[in-house]
């Protein structure tokens, strides 16, 4: 494992993203359109609805964005990468890149929601803790599933039915933590929830790193 290789892959992914501007712009437009749609339909949101809708939009926008992380380039290019990098470097780079992307996406969605509906968050440290840990779980599951389903033909549907049940524990825990951060519910064992979310993330990332090398050969 070589850090400079990982940085190189992340930089390559970022460059592709910037050059194919329609893809990234499409994702953000999706998020903004959905938020605006909700704004026109609801006019006003309670804290609970705000919390749930933000995460649902992040979930589906992230799903659309990450699904292409293993199919956006041609097969021959992947063969080239295969000769250059080890599987561990590729998957770690993809995990980091998708994680950063999901966090960025989340902040964009929260920004749009804040402008349209206001911001019900009371405890920002706890909210950010929940956000960083939860999006880590979501982006790692999506990365893994895209490496599995990217091989299949109908990757869009496949991706959602494979990954949505898998991210459910992380999303539920994250929603609970952010709801506590908005003072919607009280929970004295919030530190325990954070530890559990962190350990689910570690479990997922460990499994991804453990399984990916045998997938990469294919």
């Amino acid at each position: 494992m070589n850090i400079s290789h990982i940085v190189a892959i992340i930089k390559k992914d970022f460059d592709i993203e910037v050059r194919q501007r329609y893809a990234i712009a499409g994702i953000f437009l999706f998020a903004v359109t959905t938020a605006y749609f909700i704004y026109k339909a609801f006019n006003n949101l309670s804290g609970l609805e705000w919390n749930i809708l933000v995460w649902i939009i992040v979930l589906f926008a992230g799903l659309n964005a990450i699904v292409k992380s293993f199919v956006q380039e041609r097969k021959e290019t992947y063969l080239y990468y295969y000769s250059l990098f080890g599987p561990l470097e590729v998957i770690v780079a993809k995990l980091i890149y998708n994680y950063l992307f999901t966090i960025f996406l989340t902040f964009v969605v929260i920004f749009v929601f804040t402008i349209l509906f206001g911001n019900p968050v009371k405890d920002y440290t706890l909210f950010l803790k929940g956000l960083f840990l939860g999006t880590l779980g979501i982006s790692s599951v999506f990365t893994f599933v895209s490496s599995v389903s990217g091989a299949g033909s109908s990757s869009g549907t496949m991706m959602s039915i494979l990954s949505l049940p898998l991210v459910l524990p992380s999303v539920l825990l994250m929603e609970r933590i952010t709801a506590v951060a908005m003072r919607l519910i009280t929970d004295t064992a919030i530190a325990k929830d954070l530890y559990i979310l962190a350990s689910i993330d570690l479990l997922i990332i460990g499994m991804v790193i453990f399984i990916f090398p045998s997938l990469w050969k294919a």
Partner: protein
Amino acid sequence: MKSNWWKILGILILIYTVIVGMSVPLKPGIERADSISMGSNGNNASSISSGENHVIKVIGYNTNYKDNTNKAWLRLDTIGAVAATKFETISETEANVHFTIPTIFPARDTFQLLSMVIYNKEDGPSILPDAFSIRTNQRSNSNLTEWTVDPITNITDKPGMQFPYRSVLNETIRNTFFHIPLWFSMFILLLISIIYSGKYLKNNNIKDDIIASSLVNVAVLFGILGIITGSIWARFTWGTFWTTDVKLNMSTVAMLIYVASLILRSSINDVDRRAKLSASYNIFAFAALIPLVFVIPRLTDSLHPGNGGNPALGGEDMENTLRMVFYPAIIGFTLLGLWMTSILIRYESLKDRWLSRK
């Protein structure tokens, strides 16, 4: 024949489970007990005060009140019990029991809970826990002699094997031998399947993939049966087929994960690629299953035993008579599942061979 002994064993165990689990009677119990008299200061059934005389109508379950000398007590835990002044038998399962509630209660809360105990020679003791909540007027820790005049003694259990009587569960307690063992054997099958998935990723032997996927198929079937038996059980104990209970919903999500893995398999045509992807997904899905089924339900309230502060299988919910059927049932369902798997494996390998010859 020699290699098939475990199939016969599995079927014999399941026959034993069905026959014993369905035919052994429940212990005699008290279905309900309500005060049908007014107290001295006009209190009705819902609020009984200390020092009053009350007639309590008892409805028993599986009991034989006629032709037996029945005794009844109201028991206050650790202190003692007061015996009934009179036991009027109406029918085998109905009786009016007269009590004089003692005037002095031990120094504790204003409201104290009394359990009801009824005993006769034929039925043995039957208990209704926390039957009445009594408003106490005098509380002290001395002069508690009223509680120890006629203690609960000379009690012998009903001979023979019976399953415990629980007031909400009633006869549905027998579902313990089907609902829970189905989930246990599902987990055993999934555990074996990830071992074979790991073996496939290591050796790339297509036989391992066929074994793993057949095990997942049977495990999904068992899981769906587990949900159905649980749903029927919920209808008769909690009142509806489906509740918002975490464990129910988490196990449904777990089933969705595995059904998705079966769809993933059928979506890929290339045999090696399909084997590789479904083996990877299978291992990942099992890792995701652990927080779903073992962690999240313990965090929130649940109606299931073992979650949200309820006692688990080790607690008083499990009695030795139940264990005598419950543990064999787990082995029986697992063996049946393995037999079903072996048939599926044979079918899949034949299909594989036939397709490759074509």
